[in-house]
């Protein structure tokens, strides 16, 4: 019984916010911010992939990205989005493990802060940030002679009216 009464109360207060986030409707720059984030993340991804090839030889593949939902905001809806890009570099014959040793300078040369090495299941990740963009090189020795490059921008809240557009936005063109 208590549950039903409580829901009625919650419904009547719906839309009051209360989580400390600014009303996105008052932020007309949200879409522009996401477009800019796309440009920034793709440019950084291209720079890191090129840098990794410079350090380890080999070739890149699967250099793509897209907008992903960040935090859900109810049925069929994300309240915020971010741009994510990834890529793979199959290292050259002369590359020596751990590959990540050679990739710290690639991150710092691209203007990222001091990289941090972290363990992850199956391998290690070298991660750093630059202006809110998080970038990481990952090495998974059991899976093959390659490193993975992943970048993502910060979550950006978008106006309710634009959420569906961002959810359906496709970005099939490789950045490199």
């Amino acid at each position, binding site marked *: 019984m208590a549950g039903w009464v409580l829901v009625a109360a919650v419904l009547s207060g719906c839309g009051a916010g*209360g989580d400390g986030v600014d009303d996105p409707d008052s932020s007309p720059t949200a879409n522009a911010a996401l477009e800019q984030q796309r440009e920034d993340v793709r440019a950084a991804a291209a720079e890191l992939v090129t840098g990794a090839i410079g350090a380890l030889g080999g070739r890149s593949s699967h250099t793509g990205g897209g907008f992903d939902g960040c935090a859900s905001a*109810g049925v069929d809806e994300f309240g915020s989005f971010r741009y994510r890009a990834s890529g793979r570099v199959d290292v050259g014959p002369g590359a020596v493990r751990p590959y990540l040793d050679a990739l710290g300078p690639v991150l710092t040369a691209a203007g990222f802060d001091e990289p941090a090495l972290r363990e*992850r*299941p199956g391998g290690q990740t070298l991660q750093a940030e630059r202006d809110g963009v998080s970038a*990481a090189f990952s090495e998974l020795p059991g899976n093959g002679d390659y490193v993975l490059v992943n970048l993502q921008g910060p979550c950006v809240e978008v106006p309710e009216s634009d959420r569906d557009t961002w959810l359906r936005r496709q970005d099939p063109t490789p950045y490199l």
Partner: protein
Amino acid sequence: MTTIQLPPLPRVAPALTCDPAAISACGADLLAASAQVDDLGTFVAGRARVDDWTGEAATAYHQAIAPTGRRADAMSLALRGVAHRVEEHSAEMQRLLDRRTALEDRQQHLAQQVAHLRAEVATTTEEGAAELQADCDRVAGQVQAYETDLDTWVSDLATEESEMSQAFTRVLGADDVDRIYGGVADPADGPLRDKPGAGASPAEVHAWWAALTAAQRRAVIAAAPGAIGNLDGIPASARHAANTVALGRDLADYAHTEDAGVLTDDERTCYDNALAADEARREIEGRHDPVTGEPIVAQIYIYDPAAFDGDGAVAISAGDLDTADNVAVVVPGFGTDGESAPYQADRAATLYESTRVLDPSATNASLFWIGYDAPDNAPWDEGYDGAGVVTESMAAAGGERLADTIDGLRASREDDPAHLTAIGHSYGSTTTGHGAHDHGLGVDDVVFVGSPGVGGDTDHASDTGVDPDHVWAGSNSRDPIADLGNHGWVHGETVFGAGLGDDPAEDDFGAHRFQAESTTRGGAYSFGDHSKYFDHDTESLANISHIVNGDYDAVQEAEHLHDPFLGPVEDPEYDREPTSPTTSSLTP
């Protein structure tokens, strides 16, 4: 003076500019168009005959349409043949690209060795000459082997290009089509005649499919995609191929009808569902496996844009359902319909990524399943009083369909069963509860998240028919929907004839409760918290992923809800500081 015979420089492989994915897309368009032409042949042989019309005019009509049917049958076979050849061409060109990459690596490596040997010649002494010559001979042998492989590659490329071009040109004209395909029986006809009828079990369907030849299967997929696309017992890869044909045909049809300005309201609804399914597939294919970096495989397991009076049915997986070690089926809830597909696809891809990140050694597939008619009256839109009280009837009907889908997944992998987990979210947990209780779900684990109740007849985890040790519940302390389940001795469905059953996160229920709080939770109930269970880097997604991976020891369990006889429900999770475990490919 000793002469050293240096190895020759290896030739560079010629450039190869092509795009196998674009070739495959071209083939898919042709296959969808061939299905449309095939429909004309079927129509002429069936509905167009107007059997109750007799007389001279009727006879003339029947005589006139017969050649049209024959022509359509021949043309569909011809177009289908080319479409299949284009698909093969796509695969062959990918193989040639891969071979070229390997040749390029060998060429670079050999060129380095030759350069090294040339430098050695300048500094070597008479004593070292014999050894150097031996090295040169060894490398020369490798260069020769490389050159032979390069020649073979060039020849294979030329052959493939020539055969593809010939396949295009041999059926250019209508006369060619008639000469080659006129009166030829469709290889799909026999299998379709023998197909088990409605009501056949998934096992019977699987046995029928397994007995067909590869050519027969391809023919059935092209000629009658609707006959197998949603048929339980058919392997996921074949269902995907058939549903891709059906979707491609529908998109072309509806777009053309819209352009012509004659799209009906019903067709508009179906078109929206088809577009949503297409976007959902692209959403998954546009994401990358966090372990390999390769695009995630998408499989359209169910596609029926007209189902449930236009709400539509669609189920698409991230990952290969036929081969994955771990398979998760996610059952969404309130407000879900065909147009929800892109959102559900994002979730499925997110769950796929998370399961892969947390166990790179296992292969996975996450299927979002909009395979039942979910309540449209979402409580956050309309309130329970606005659209009438939500009852279990849709969950009961959906549970039966879910059980069929699970049976189909099992039947198509009889010899290689996956670790299979059903995950019900929101009203989808009520549906999953009904499927388990009423029909028995052949799953290894069952997970309820954000559950408003798992069905009135399921008072305890053991009532699901699944070992209670493999029944799991996630409930965010700020989720108002999860608070709807009956607690303690109050049973809504028995008091009001409405309500959705017991809260699976409560101590009396006997399931494992896992941590599912969010770092972005507010201070009070919020519908936003009802939808965060599948977001990256949440406790909930990490724990669900561990369960899907069968990695039970890694699951962070939570204390159960408790409803004392007197006083409000107590949730020990309410005051616990939420964490943010890494589930995306990155450390946040």
